[in-house]
């Protein structure tokens, strides 16, 4: 295992913060589990601009894959193949969840009953039932994965840890 690549972790963290920020300002609180559990009282500050609605649709998918690929890649300190596996794994995860919103019945039936009442996991069924499939999210995830791989390669550290 190599050293932690701080550059990658910092960029990943930045992308994650940007994604969270975008989500908070572009989505009505009641539509997110985040909002319901934190009871964030900023409903009035939800920016209902067309621009944010447009980019708020698929940009979080892009940023999610980008951020977590960079974070895990940076922490893991992998080689080229490792980076590729990490990026593809996050792409696969995001695509799987997105497809679950298309095949709602199959996805919601695959959720174990034991998830009921478990923090975060209890929202999984609701995620599939209330979410809307969007092929642009798939494309955004693919772009996020490609961008993450590119950044990981550009910022990789050859030194051994």
């Amino acid at each position, binding site marked *: 295992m190599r050293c932690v690549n701080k550059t990658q972790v910092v960029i990943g963290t930045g992308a994650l913060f940007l994604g969270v920020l975008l989500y908070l300002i572009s989505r009505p609180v009641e539509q997110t589990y985040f*909002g319901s559990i934190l009871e964030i009282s900023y409903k009035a500050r939800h920016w209902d601009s067309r621009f944010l609605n447009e980019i708020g649709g698929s940009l979080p998918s892009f940023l999610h894959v980008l951020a977590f690929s960079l*974070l895990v890649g940076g922490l893991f300190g992998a080689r080229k193949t490792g980076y590729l596996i990490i990026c593809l794994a996050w792409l696969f995860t995001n695509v799987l*969840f997105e497809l679950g919103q298309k095949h709602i019945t199959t996805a919601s039936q695959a959720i174990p009953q034991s998830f009921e009442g478990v923090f*975060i996991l209890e*929202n999984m069924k609701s*995620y599939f039932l209330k979410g809307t499939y969007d092929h642009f999210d798939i494309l955004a995830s693919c772009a996020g994965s490609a961008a993450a791989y590119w950044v990981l390669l550009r910022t990789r550290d050859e030194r051994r840890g």
Partner: protein
Amino acid sequence: MKMVKGVLRIARYFAIIGCCALGFATIVASGGGGGGGEAAPTVFISQILSDPDTDGDIKFTAFSIFEISSARETGSVLAGIHPISGDEYRGFLSFPLGGPGGVPGTAGILSATLEISVISMTVATPNQTVPLLIDLVSFPPPTIIASDFDRNLQPPLQSMIFNVFTSDTGTTLLVDVTVLMDEAQRQGLADFQLRLLLDFSALSGLVEIDDSISETAPLLTVEFF
């Protein structure tokens, strides 16, 4: 120094695992997650009791005679083959989908569950499993007729199997009939009608389903948007 390195390595593993967990959590907790600005559909739930005037069973005796019974009169619906007499019963349940509290023709089906109470079971050997075949059919109400018994004359539009165990006697069973409801909706059927019969993999076994009072009568629960 070696110990510090070990601790750091463990901390790093935890950070990676934590990062992955956070990644999953952010997807799930993002609620509607993605969506391209489209509004999430509202989910509705309909609970529909079967129509006792249409429900019933058809008995095919060893002497090739059809006998039709109405659930309104018997208070139950039979499905299967009697292990001693060899008489075959095919049960029919009908759920009206129209009207208030029904399922609109344009609705997308999320799930459909059939709730039935098993009054009794007649089996050849103890602890026997009775596999029932559920056919989605479309027979014109108000009553069933002898030809509805025949799978050639009244072909199934979709079928599925579910097992009833002798231990299920006196209990209420939940059967996932989403695949049948999907087909009924796709074909635009006004009624969700089912034919229950013994699966061809079994020789005998008879199940009596309660269809007397509304508390225990067959109930269809549909989640749709």
